[in-house]
């Protein structure tokens, strides 16, 4: 089982490093093959909304030569993709989002209807399960509700067969975060 972690932490904070370490150790402890992308250290240009990845080079971003070109195949060939991010105004950090914006090449441009809403069709036969792991200093119901909704909405658009979202709190300490991560992995199917 392969898991790709898109690490959108901004760096310099011990709690973020602790959360990342807990997540990786729990995944590896369950025998998963883990690849982590520390996005803040990667040169990734922002998506310019040109749709070239649909109409010029279908399935591949037209921006070449930066680190994002590795991400799309890594994500779509995974069993689980993890979005690790400080919860930022309820959503993702800019570090995580600069990577996600470059992944629309994984979808096809044509539209389909899901539960009465328009979405893009699949390009591939299978897509990874989605695990969103947010980081906050302490509980914040409004922020966490937005984060949960965002993960659920991404799961629809990215055709993820399973999605789970949870928020770790610095004040939980490492032991508390570990227990929370174990629960999230159970829910996303990490122990199966």
């Amino acid at each position, binding site marked *: 089982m392969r898991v790709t972690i898109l690490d959108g932490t901004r760096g310099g904070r011990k709690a973020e490093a602790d959360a990342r370490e807990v997540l990786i150790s729990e995944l590896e402890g369950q025998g998963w093959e883990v690849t982590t992308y520390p996005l803040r250290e990667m040169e990734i240009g922002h998506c*310019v909304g040109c749709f070239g990845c649909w109409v010029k*080079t279908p399935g591949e971003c037209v921006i070449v030569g930066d680190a994002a070109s590795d991400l799309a195949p890594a994500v779509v060939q995974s069993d689980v993709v993890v979005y690790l991010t400080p919860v930022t*105004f309820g959503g993702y950090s800019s570090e995580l989002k600069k990577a996600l914006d470059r992944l629309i090449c994984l979808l096809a*441009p044509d539209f389909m209807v899901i539960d009465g809403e328009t979405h893009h069709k699949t390009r591939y036969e299978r897509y990874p399960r989605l695990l969103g792991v947010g980081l906050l200093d302490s509980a914040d119901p409004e922020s966490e509700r937005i984060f949960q909704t965002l993960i659920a909405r991404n799961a629809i658009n990215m055709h993820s067969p399973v999605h789970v979202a949870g928020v770790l709190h610095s004040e939980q300490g490492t032991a508390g975060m570990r227990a929370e991560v174990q629960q999230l992995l159970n829910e996303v199917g990490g122990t199966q």
Partner: protein
Amino acid sequence: MTTSRQVLLLVGSARRPRSTSEALGSYLLERLAEKGFGTETLLLHRALKSGEKREALLEATDRADVLVVAFPLYVDSLPSLVIRALELIADHREGGDQSRPQRLLAIVNCGFPEAQHNDTAIAICRRFAREAGFEWIGGLSLGGGGAISGRPLAEAGGMARNPIQSLELTAAAIAEGGALPEEAVEAMARSIIPSWAYRWMGWFGWRQQARKHGVQRQL
């Protein structure tokens, strides 16, 4: 630039030469200019390019009485460069003097015909306003942005009727110092093209563009 009421438009689309985000934001700024506001527009893909430009962005934000953030929906949320700008603004304002009231509204457009795709992005902007010390006055949500396709609203014909109505109401509310009226929110969210027609237009348009590059079979 030194009028008593200053409005700053931050455009979060990197698309050139024109974007629907800029078309919507510009229309609002033109109406506000008519009502005596000083106006300023920054394109975020340029404003974040260097330390000097980022500093100018923060100074412009400090000057603004009203901040308008207009952007396209990317993956159910704000484009990364908009999030980066909001992170910088929030960091800059943390612990600062926020006694001068500054108001914020968001205008989001998406490439799906249903405006409700924008709801999460609007919630994120509202939350940003709270964390960064702005008074949130509301969010406008447009579906089917591809039908406007960056044209100035005055040139977009009947497609732009609802957005124009919404922005006229919004400009009046801002000038009066109030929050966005529900009527303005509803007008922007009203469908500008039937969903089936939009999907058909997409099907046709994608193929037409792909054919130019010889890749129509790979869509």
